């Protein structure tokens, strides 16, 4: 039974149930790297090139974490997950960037997922199954099961759960998925790539900090594809990055919806797609007069500075909400 390592990084937050269910159905053992820590990031920094973004450095750290514990590491080349869209150039070259910078790696399982010209993700899983030496019928059965699990996961996300909660719910631990009861508290939309906002170390526990302050948080992942598309339709041209389009689409949707009291855009330092997506979001938020905070993360981010900015932002959000409620009451 091969032990397959999956780094808890990058699109783990999107697709982990899909991948895990596939491997487990085939009878493989799945090992996930532990949640990001300072040590993991530091090891990633040592091995990654200087100019790559924080999420990739974190991913390298996770790969190193798995290196000696598994028979193979699953590091797919995610080229495109939707027709006429890409992820980001760094995802396209990720297997090479990681493979060439770390010595003594176990084999990388890096099939390419490319739906740019449409088609089914089955080919991706078929290649994966072939590489592991399983017969096609078994691969097909595993693929179908994996897709069912992924569908279920997506529904859980759309019901408002965050990825880790949804994953717990999938495993049948419903207690973790208690609804957040926050009637009457301000609603803040946190917009950003899942691997930044849900990684508590990378985001310096942004979601936890907001929760403890009694802020209700919504993210892009609880939005259906339909709503994202409607939001993104306001762009002058279709955005060709899937994550960027989701970010802008969700932000535009929440801006138009009118019920959020503030918006936080989280991006990594020097993120290419976000430099454009963030620009569109910030311009629209300013035009609509919504409190807007742009948090840029990198390995040098200091928590104290972030807390100060967050508090100032939340003061503004709360004051504005109170002011508005008083205004509408009188």
């Amino acid at each position, binding site marked *: 039974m091969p032990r397959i390592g999956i780094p808890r990084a990058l699109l783990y937050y999107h697709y982990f149930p899909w991948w895990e269910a596939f491997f487990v159905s085939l009878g493989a053992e799945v090992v996930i790297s532990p949640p990001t820590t300072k040590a993991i990031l530091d090891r990633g920094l040592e091995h990654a*090139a200087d*100019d790559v973004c924080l999420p990739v450095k974190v991913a390298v750290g996770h790969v190193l974490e798995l290196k000696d514990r598994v028979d193979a590491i699953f590091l797919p080349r995610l080229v495109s997950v939707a027709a006429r869209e890409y992820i980001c150039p760094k995802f396209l*070259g990720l297997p*090479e960037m990681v493979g060439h910078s770390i010595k003594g790696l176990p084999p990388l399982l890096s099939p390419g997922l490319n739906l740019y010209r449409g088609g089914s993700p089955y080919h991706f899983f078929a290649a994966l199954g072939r590489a592991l030496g399983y017969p096609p019928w078994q691969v097909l059965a595993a693929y179908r099961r994996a897709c069912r699990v992924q569908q279920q996961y997506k529904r859980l996300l759309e019901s408002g759960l965050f990825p880790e909660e949804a994953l717990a719910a999938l495993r049948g631990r419903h207690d973790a998925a208690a609804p957040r009861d926050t009637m009457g508290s301000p609603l803040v939309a946190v917009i950003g790539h899942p691997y930044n906002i849900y990684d508590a170390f990378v985001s310096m526990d942004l979601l936890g900090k907001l929760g403890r302050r009694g802020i209700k948080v919504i993210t892009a992942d609880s939005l259906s594809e339909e709503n994202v598309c409607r939001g993104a339709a306001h762009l002058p041209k279709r955005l060709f*990055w899937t994550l960027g389009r989701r970010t802008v689409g969700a932000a535009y949707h929440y801006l138009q919806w009118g019920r959020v009291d503030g918006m936080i855009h989280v991006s990594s330092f020097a993120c290419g797609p976000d430099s454009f997506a963030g620009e569109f979001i910030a311009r629209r938020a300013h035009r609509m007069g919504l409190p807007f905070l742009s948090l840029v993360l990198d390995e040098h981010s200091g928590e104290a500075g972030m807390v100060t900015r967050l508090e100032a932002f939340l003061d503004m959000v709360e004051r504005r909400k109170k002011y508005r409620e008083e205004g509408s009451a009188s």
Partner: protein
Amino acid sequence: MKVTFPHMGHLWVSVAAMLQYLGVEVVVPPPTTKRTLTLGSRYAPEFACLPLKLNLGNFIEARELGADTILMAGGCGPCRFGYYAQVEHAILEDLGYRYRLVVMEPPQRHAGELLAKIKYITGHRSWLEVARAIWFGFQKARLLDELERRAHYLRPREVRRGSTDRAFGEALKIVAAVRHPRDMAKAAEQAHRIMSEVAFDAYRPVLRVGIVGEIFTLLEPFANYDLERKLGHMGVEVDRSIYLSEWINDHLLFGLAGGRRTRKAACRAAAPYLNHFVGGHGQETVGSAALYAAQGYDGVIQLMPFTCMPEIVAASILPKLKAELGIPVLTIVVDEHSGEAGLITRLESFVDLLHGRKGVEG
């Protein structure tokens, strides 16, 4: 309608020729300067790449000269260039610069979209004339590239320092002044003659360095602090992995014009290191570096703007190639904070290193 477009090296010579031949009024933006960069980086997103900032500066300066229509190229990712025009336009609108935007890019739905855009710019001119105009512009680009290659050869070997630059400047003026395709042959002859009058020492030993990387920073001397000239004066003969006419051929003429190098060859050479496209010229960068190593060049310099995604992928793979092929590689990242003095120091030490290696091996 007064049409403007962004600068990228000598691109303006070709585009202006094309449009003027068709009777379109053209505003060539003032040459890119520090002011262009300051204007651009003031209004552009912080992490946008340098070319966007310079484009934006060009458009603001062209507006001051009365331009009202932007002609831009586009694309469909994953490199950010495909979305440049839209971001720049949104910024200009918010600043109060009213511009009409015409983006030449692969059509979203059908080929008619692109044709309609060409018609919008060219007005009533026939398609035959449009084709002629494009060919005219392409010929100019090709001629300039020949002259540039000659200058790359001459610079490290010139007898009187600076004579190559003067000759090239004159030749450029002659090529830029041609208004009709029938005068091209004469201009070419004149320009070549000027270049051939530069006295040089064919036996002087020189280093050979290949320059690879992101196209804009390769082609725009302002963005790379005149890297080629600096290297030339340090006794280095340079070759660039991509020239303007090759880019026009690959991207605007769909490779129809043929040529001595295509992106395919570079991508084949990249395969052992990076076997997938990564947008922009990332794969070509890796492939061209491998090709330069195979051709016995003494070193490779990679140029890229800060935050350039495809080149970052390439840059993180180049160390492997460097170790396997034993060719020194220097990566230079440029943005609005780059300093010229620091660059010169790095170039000098790189050249010293190459001299040392050559001395040991030869």
